[in-house]
């Protein structure tokens, strides 16, 4: 019985040796540790191959041994694309089919299709590239941006919005930060906001770009589109003047100081007034130190004309400095200008009481900023201590 098993065991051992040999060859000789083949193609250029073996012949040999060798396909396509683009296209398509998420395959094939003017096909590959390899986005996003604002690209963008791949939000933000025409961005973003998929970073950047460009109407409109239906019920010239929703600091919502109070000399928050009231108010606590920046501000887009600003205020031991006041300034080129209207100074102590002041928005003042500032001469050093509460801030148009 033992003698009968010997040939069988020898056969198994032989097969095992053959398999091991193949494993060594494949992993140690034919392919590198990343899985890519060691080809003649690994040399700098095909021209460096020995003259007695034509480059195309070497590639053909490789492909005959393994038709699914992606690196060889790419080289074959690269060789053929100048003189035989149809052959190159077949090779690129085969490479993409074999390795649909390979970085080199995607970029090489996209380059080929771009050079051929086959933009839609190139964009499809570029989308995959930025999806799988985020480090390629810096180079590829400008191409995508240009395409998506083309005649054909607009339709493609709708498809992208519907799919909502992970790269879209970074694409909008990167394009915004790179300085793409804000109108282009607004058009791209509006479809995202309409689909309820725009992120706060996208909206914030695009609205700010439009605002800095002096296109207040468009900035306001993009921001409006980002609001939930309930928030649109009563937008007002002053948004969320009753402080019932959490400020987003985006667009034309409240911007509360975010730096530490040891740096600014104040802290602003929206809280319920102590005593069980259900409604919320703006509370600003001043530390008594020198003031840097403003604790609360909001950009406005009030058309030229006359207005009445009104609200409620409560003051607690504001005994240091000249007090604080609400101001409205026109904003031009991103910078607040001189004060066009200001409230009374809030100083001392008082329970909730109404306050109001008249506002005249001059012609040419398309955008404004409402902010709580220390009272006193412009640019002077200001100190403030104590606490102020505000609620029900309203800007009302008057004849």
């Amino acid at each position, binding site marked *: 019985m033992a003698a009968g098993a010997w040939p069988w065991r020898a056969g198994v051992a032989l097969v095992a040796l053959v398999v091991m040999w193949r494993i060594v060859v494949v992993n140690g000789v034919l392919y590198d540790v990343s899985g890519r083949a060691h080809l003649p193609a690994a040399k700098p250029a095909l021209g460096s191959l020995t003259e007695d073996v034509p480059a195309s012949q070497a590639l053909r040999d490789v492909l005959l041994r393994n038709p699914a060798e992606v690196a060889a396909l790419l080289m074959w396509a690269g060789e053929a694309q100048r003189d035989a683009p149809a052959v190159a296209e077949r090779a690129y398509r085969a490479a993409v089919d074999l390795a649909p998420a390979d970085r080199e395959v995607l970029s090489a094939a996209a380059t080929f299709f*771009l050079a051929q003017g086959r933009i839609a096909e190139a964009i499809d590959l570029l989308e995959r590239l930025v999806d799988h390899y985020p480090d390629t986005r810096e180079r590829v996003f*400008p*191409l995508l941006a240009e395409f998506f604002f083309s005649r054909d690209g607009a339709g493609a963008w*709708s498809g992208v919005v519907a799919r909502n791949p992970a790269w879209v939000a970074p694409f909008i933000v990167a394009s915004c930060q790179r300085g793409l025409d804000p109108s*282009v961005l607004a058009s791209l973003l509006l479809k995202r906001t309409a689909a309820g998929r725009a992120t706060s970073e996208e909206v914030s950047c695009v609205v700010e770009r439009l605002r800095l460009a002096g296109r207040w109407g468009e900035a306001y409109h993009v921001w409006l589109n980002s609001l939930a239906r309930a928030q649109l019920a009563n937008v007002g010239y002053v948004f969320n003047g009753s402080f019932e929703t959490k400020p987003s600091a985006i667009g034309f919502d409240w911007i509360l100081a975010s730096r530490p109070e040891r740096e600014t000399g104040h802290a602003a928050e929206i809280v319920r007034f102590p005593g069980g*009231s259900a409604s919320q108010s703006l509370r600003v606590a001043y530390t008594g130190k020198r003031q840097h920046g403003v604790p609360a501000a909001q950009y406005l887009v009030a058309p030229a004309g006359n207005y*009445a600003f009104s609200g409620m205020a409560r003051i607690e031991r504001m005994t240091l400095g000249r007090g604080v006041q609400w101001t409205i300034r026109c904003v031009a080129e991103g910078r607040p200008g001189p004060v066009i209207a200001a409230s009374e100074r809030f100083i001392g102590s008082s329970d909730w009481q*109404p306050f*109001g002041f008249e506002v005249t928005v001059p012609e040419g003042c398309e955008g404004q900023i409402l902010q709580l500032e220390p009272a006193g001469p412009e640019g002077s050093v200001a100190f403030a201590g104590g606490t102020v509460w505000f609620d*029900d801030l309203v800007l009302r148009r008057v004849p």
Partner: protein
Amino acid sequence: MTTTINAMHRWAAAMALTVTAFAPHGFAQSAAEPIAHLKDVNGNVLVSKETGLASGVESGALAKGSRVITTANSEVTVVYDNGCEVKLKPNQRFEVATDKPCSELAARAESILTEPAGAIVAAGSTGAIAAGSGVALSSVALPLAAVGGLAGLAALQTQRESQAVSPH
């Protein structure tokens, strides 16, 4: 205590409104006569009030000078009392005026978004992007590829050395 504070709050608010209403500089706005109304409100439509924009509702009255704004995916028709109708597409604004014939009023519904200069634009479903210059795509695509695209992608390929190949 709570009741007292809330009552004071409400009293003060009422006083503020009263003070505002009778202020010598005319803070109060006289109620303007409605001359039109909204019809077929679809989506988020906004109408200017004395305190700013607010949602527009079906049959909502519109006075002279009111502004009507449509957001993305929204449409509305402004119907004047004299029968003139102005249809607003998405992302448009319209100021209710009376000094023009109906045909001119209809033409005053304008897009809020500016068309970028020199760009190829497309007729999107939202109406935000209007038909533009009509330049063929390929005429833009090739310069695009030549100037930055190919160079950028070629650079990407040079980074390939250490990248893994996807499974075959």
